[in-house]
């Protein structure tokens, strides 16, 4: 299975139990497991939320919304039951971190769900894992069975008289379902099409009840926050960007892998120090900082960036999901833009016209362009189409398709021009790494 890597700059919080056999509940208990939820049972709900607020924990799924604030939006009194929903539908290209958490430390997710439940007054938590991750569904099922066997979940958790149930659920192949409102539709047994907001899920979510939806990594961080203290977790990162996160290095890099680094870690160091630089003596051309939905950075920009939400936010860009993909100087950016668009065209659910039609036309135009049949006016047309998708759809999939496309056209226009007038792709021979680098 997925190999683990390590580096001296890593600060292991969420990943501290990786490779230690913590799938087993007894081992997890030895490694301070279920201590945080016992602590939470003695705290007032508002104090739990305040501790999470103090940690400056922000959503690890990609949007970076402050978790404590999200929890505080849930109304105290509700006629309908409240729910916790864990988003384990990890499918953002470049992202493979939740897989490791679910594989090595499933109980930390369960514990995080319980704490979230205590904080907002929910009695049930659903853990949604993508359909392709069947072995992780099996690990989670076993973990949940163990939790019930020990009496940690159910009518009387830890003998406190409080009630909380943990449930598992699986998808069946759909990127779109990673979006929170589509995720709820899928959990309700429907096609995963997004809902309009407002109302937000914190007010009207699953089956009409207030619902907190958090990423796997976000909830896996919560037990550690309660144990180490919110302030201490916050201090690991930069102001307003608390703690560490799992960065998945992939693409043209010598040491790909998932590394836990503090927020605000310089991207340059991440590439050359942690990741060991670019293979085959090539140079860096571009970096996808957080999954394929983010603005693509040039090598020069990558040198300047720090990996926290606000460093990207002040440029009007996004840190994203932690999937950092490196592209070397022999990669064709037109080809890359095409492959990214092919993905969004495949995954567009078809609900909103700008996304359904936009991704299809962009894929067609980029295919034609890469084949050498593009026209000069197509270059502006690609950007125009992308701009017109931006902000015009129910969910962010339309934006996610538009953002990388716009940034590639803006930054590598010369490569589009090099494909004009029937010229073959200038990178075709070297576009791919023929000799794969050995993983150290």
């Amino acid at each position, binding site marked *: 299975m997925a190999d683990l890597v390590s580096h001296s700059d890593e600060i292991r919080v969420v990943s501290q139990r990786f490779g230690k056999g913590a799938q087993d509940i007894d081992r997890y208990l030895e490694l301070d497991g279920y201590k945080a939820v016992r602590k939470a049972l003695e705290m007032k709900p508002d104090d739990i939320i305040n501790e999470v607020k103090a940690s400056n924990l922000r959503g690890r799924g990609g949007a970076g919304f402050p978790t404590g604030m999200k929890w505080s939006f849930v109304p105290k009194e509700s006629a309908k039951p409240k729910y916790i929903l864990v988003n384990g539908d990890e499918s953002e290209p470049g992202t493979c971190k939740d897989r490791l958490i679910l594989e090595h430390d499933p109980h930390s997710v369960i514990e995080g769900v319980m704490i979230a439940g205590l904080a907002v007054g929910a009695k049930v938590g659903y853990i949604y894992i993508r359909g392709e991750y069947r072995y992780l569904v099996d690990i989670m099922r076993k973990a949940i069975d163990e939790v019930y066997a020990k009496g940690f979940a159910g009518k009387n958790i830890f003998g406190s008289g409080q009630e909380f149930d943990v449930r598992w659920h699986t998808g069946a192949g759909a990127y779109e379902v990673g979006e929170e409102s589509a995720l709820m539709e899928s959990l309700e047994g429907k096609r995963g099409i997004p809902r309009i907001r407002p109302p937000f899920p914190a007010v009207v979510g699953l089956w009409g009840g207030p619902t907190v939806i958090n990423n796997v990594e976000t909830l896996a961080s919560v037990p550690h926050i309660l144990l180490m203290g919110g302030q201490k977790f916050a201090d690991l990162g930069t102001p307003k960007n608390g703690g560490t996160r799992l960065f998945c290095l992939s693409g043209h890099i010598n040491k*790909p892998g998932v590394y836990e680094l503090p927020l605000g870690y310089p991207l340059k160091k991440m590439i050359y120090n942690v990741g060991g630089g670019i293979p085959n003596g090539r140079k860096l051309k571009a970096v996808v900082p957080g999954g394929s939905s983010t603005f693509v950075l040039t090598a020069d920009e990558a040198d300047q960036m720090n990996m926290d939400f606000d460093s990207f936010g002040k440029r009007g860009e996004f840190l994203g999901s932690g999937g950092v993909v490196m592209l070397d100087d022999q990669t064709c950016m037109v080809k890359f833009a095409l492959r990214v668009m092919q993905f969004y065209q495949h995954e567009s659910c078809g609900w909103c016209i700008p996304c359904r039609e936009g991704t299809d036309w962009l894929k067609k135009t980029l295919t034609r362009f890469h084949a050498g049949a593009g026209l000069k006016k197509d270059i502006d047309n690609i950007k125009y189409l992308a701009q017109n998708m931006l902000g015009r759809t129910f969910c962010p999939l339309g934006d996610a398709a538009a953002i990388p496309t716009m940034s590639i056209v803006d930054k590598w226009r010369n490569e589009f021009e090099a494909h004009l007038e029937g010229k073959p792709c200038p990178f075709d021979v070297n576009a791919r790494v023929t000799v794969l680098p050995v993983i150290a």
Partner: protein
Amino acid sequence: MVITDKLDKFFDAKMQEYPTRRSFLVPMLLYTQDELGCLTDEAIAHIARKTELTELEVRNVISYYSLLRTKPLGKYHVQVCTNISCMLRGGEEIFEHCKKSLGIGHKGKTPDGLFSLEEVECIGACSWAPAVQVNYDFHENLTTKGMDEVLARYKRLP
């Protein structure tokens, strides 16, 4: 019975965990497919009865999810990821290689029904690219030679 009693009982138990009957539909379809190879007309009718939906409503859900299918695939379904992280490390070569060595194309099936092939989107193995999923099993850090070994291993299985 279209599906085994054991599976049917498992569905009954899981359905209790949700406030509506249809909520467990997506996993139910996937687990049924795992048992039968695909979602047959009989299976769809059975699930529709269980969830108190019309068959059309069930088919409507099936058509949305890429893992769900109404026609059988090969015994071993080879899913090659060619999304960005895999593409940059040779995912497309792996896909071309599979096409050649199996003699089938995207969504094709070998005449003996042993293998089927599909080019898929990100399977969450980006840091261990290029990666292939055969049914639910991950095969990572592949080369064309490694891919041959993977296929040979499945061929040898009883």
